[in-house]
């Protein structure tokens, strides 16, 4: 039965329907559609469910294996949690757009061919742009346009790669791709744009924090993790990805350390966490690919939880800068506890979901004798606690007393946070069901004495460094320049600087064209004006001669 209904398309259709609904019907669809998608994903049988042809090419819009089921499941759970959290969202477009976005992300995970991947890939870009745009502020509109430009660019690169791949191999199948042709490099580049990889990582912290209090929760989940999914499927074991991933890990930490906006801190930490997954994909063993997939699953849940707690704070206080916040534990204890659980999970604290997933990537590095990579990952694990694990809860909920006494988050937000906090702790303790869902058989025990103690040492001494060096981490009303400077400052500056040159060239071209037109008009007027050749009076004899010539010409044509 499950193969008759596509869970992604179900969410897309529900999202479109939702735009027309209001009141209880809207709430019901917001909760029931993702719940139905979760049930469908769990019921999907392995194998190809739908196949067809598009413009003469075979397409497989609905194919299932362990990897696609894992990602589709967490995307559907995320749509449910995000929908629940956003029940009080008054904007009528955001949640419908988010469901189209979530549904198309599921569509990518169930795509068996590159054409379907591309179609859902672009639909994701549109849905996510609408989610940012629906925040309704000028800053959000401008950020959504920048976001759309980057993603349409990424889409063009991907399309060029897919076209080249199909032209040379004749196959549209979405399977492992070797980096042996320019087309395949383009496909990799298109995927990496969405993963938040350098050099365009800046689109993520630029755009996501501009969405509404609930919009950012949806945004954190789908685009980057869909990219992780397609990279696991197409480019496992590509060594370059180890370096790309390590760069992302440390870029995320350093920029998050310098950041003052709580949601931009969390946005940078998305890049950081996706970096761990990309390293896992680059290592390319069964253990590391399992680790990357598991970490994507747990990351979606704890990052959503973190952004829910940040969203609840924004909803209640209207503030997002660490310099304006602090001391909120007094009146928002549940939000603080849930945010802290998310913070512990992202830091891979034992008994949280991050511990059972991220450690597999480290173990794979050890098993492959990649000692430097392993040391970098260990340093980064400490760094995660530093930039997100302590920094976020400390500056938002503790730090100084900002004097703010907002009430606790409303029930819908509280329920969503409790659900995701329970999942973070639950998966950290009862990890076997998650391990069973992974693409390869798991032969790994996360809770060994050495591993738990070493992780505790890394994290707690990272905490010590945080508090000892706290004066150096004091927040200021600043941002840190990133690659988006090139398209937000340099590009416009170059355009305005070259404006005078462009104006001069434009004036010269238009002057020459107008002069040529004026000369032409003068000649026409001398020919056609009231004193022109055609306006003159001709003698009857001349006219008869011309008529005779024309008739002779007709006669000639007739016999031809």
């Amino acid at each position, binding site marked *: 039965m499950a193969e008759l209904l596509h869970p992604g398309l179900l969410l897309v259709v529900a999202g479109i329907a939702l735009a027309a609904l209001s009141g209880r019907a809207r709430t019901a669809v917001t909760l029931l559609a993702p719940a139905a998608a979760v049930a469908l994903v769990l019921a999907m049988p392995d194998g190809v469910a739908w196949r067809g042809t598009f413009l003469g090419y075979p397409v497989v819009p609905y194919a299932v294996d362990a990897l696609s089921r894992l990602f589709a499941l967490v995307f559907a759970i995320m749509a449910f949690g995000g929908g629940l959290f956003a029940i009080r969202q008054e904007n009528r477009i955001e949640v419908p757009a988010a469901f189209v976005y979530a549904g198309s992300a599921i569509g990518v995970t169930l795509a068996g061919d590159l054409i379907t991947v591309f179609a859902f890939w672009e639909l994701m870009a549109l849905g996510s742009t609408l989610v940012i745009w629906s925040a309704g502020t000028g800053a959000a509109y401008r950020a959504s346009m920048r976001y759309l430009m980057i993603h349409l660019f990424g889409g063009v690169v991907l399309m060029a790669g897919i076209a080249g791949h199909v032209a040379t191999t004749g196959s549209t199948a979405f399977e492992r791709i070797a980096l042996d042709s320019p087309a395949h490099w383009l496909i990799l580049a298109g995927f990496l744009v969405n993963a938040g990889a350098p050099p365009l990582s800046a689109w993520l912290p630029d755009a996501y924090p501009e969405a509404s209090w609930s919009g950012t929760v949806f945004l954190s989940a789908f685009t980057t993790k869909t990219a992780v999914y397609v990279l696991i499927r197409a480019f496992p074991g590509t060594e370059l990805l180890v370096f790309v991933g390590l760069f992302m890990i440390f870029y995320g930490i350093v920029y998050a350390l310098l950041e003052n906006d709580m949601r931009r801190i969390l946005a940078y930490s998305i890049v950081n966490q996706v970096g761990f997954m990309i390293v896992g994909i680059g290592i390319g063993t069964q253990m590391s690919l399992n680790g990357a997939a598991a970490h994507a699953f747990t990351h979606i849940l704890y990052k959503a939880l973190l952004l829910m707690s940040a969203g609840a704070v924004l909803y209640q206080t209207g503030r997002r800068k660490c310099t304006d916040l602090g001391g909120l534990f007094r009146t928002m204890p549940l939000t603080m506890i849930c945010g802290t659980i998310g913070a512990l999970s992202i830091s891979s604290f034992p008994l949280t979901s991050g511990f059972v997933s991220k450690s597999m990537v480290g173990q794979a590095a050890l098993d492959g004798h990649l000692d430097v990579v392993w040391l970098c990952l260990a340093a980064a694990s400490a760094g995660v606690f530093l930039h997100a694990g302590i920094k976020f809860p400390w500056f938002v909920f503790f730090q100084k007393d900002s004097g703010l006494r907002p009430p606790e988050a409303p029930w819908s937000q509280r329920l969503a946070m409790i659900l995701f906090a329970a999942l973070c702790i639950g998966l950290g303790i009862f990890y076997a069901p998650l391990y069973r869902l992974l693409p390869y058989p798991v032969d790994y025990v996360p809770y060994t004495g050495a591993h738990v103690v070493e992780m505790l040492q890394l994290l707690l001494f990272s905490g010590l460094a945080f508090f000892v060096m706290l004066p150096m981490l004091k927040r*200021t009303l600043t941002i840190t320049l990133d690659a988006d400077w090139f398209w937000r400052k340099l590009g416009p500056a170059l355009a305005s600087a070259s404006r005078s040159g462009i104006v001069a060239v434009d004036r010269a071209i238009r002057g020459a064209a107008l002069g040529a037109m004026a000369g032409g008009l003068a000649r026409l007027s001398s020919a056609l004006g009231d004193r022109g050749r055609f306006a003159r009076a001709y003698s009857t004899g001349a006219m008869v001669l011309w008529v005779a010539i024309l008739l002779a010409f007709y006669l000639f044509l007739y016999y031809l």
Partner: protein
Amino acid sequence: MNEPTHWLVRPRTIRILWGVFVAILAATVVAGAFVGHVGHGGLADTFGFGAWFGFVACAALILFAKALGMLLKRPDTYYDERRDG
């Protein structure tokens, strides 16, 4: 705003929390001596590897971020659009 100081932010509580924190730090280092190492060879075999490496890594990251910040920090109004021109 005449509410009493929350117990969690009283100096006495903070002193106790620091004491507990230091005790836990020491406990993890001691425990490390009994459970062996995750990594093999080189730095990973040193005593209290996670402890000193975690601290040094974080201190280095903070210092690096601070230095980068000196170069790349701008007021947070830097990108604000000027629509009056």
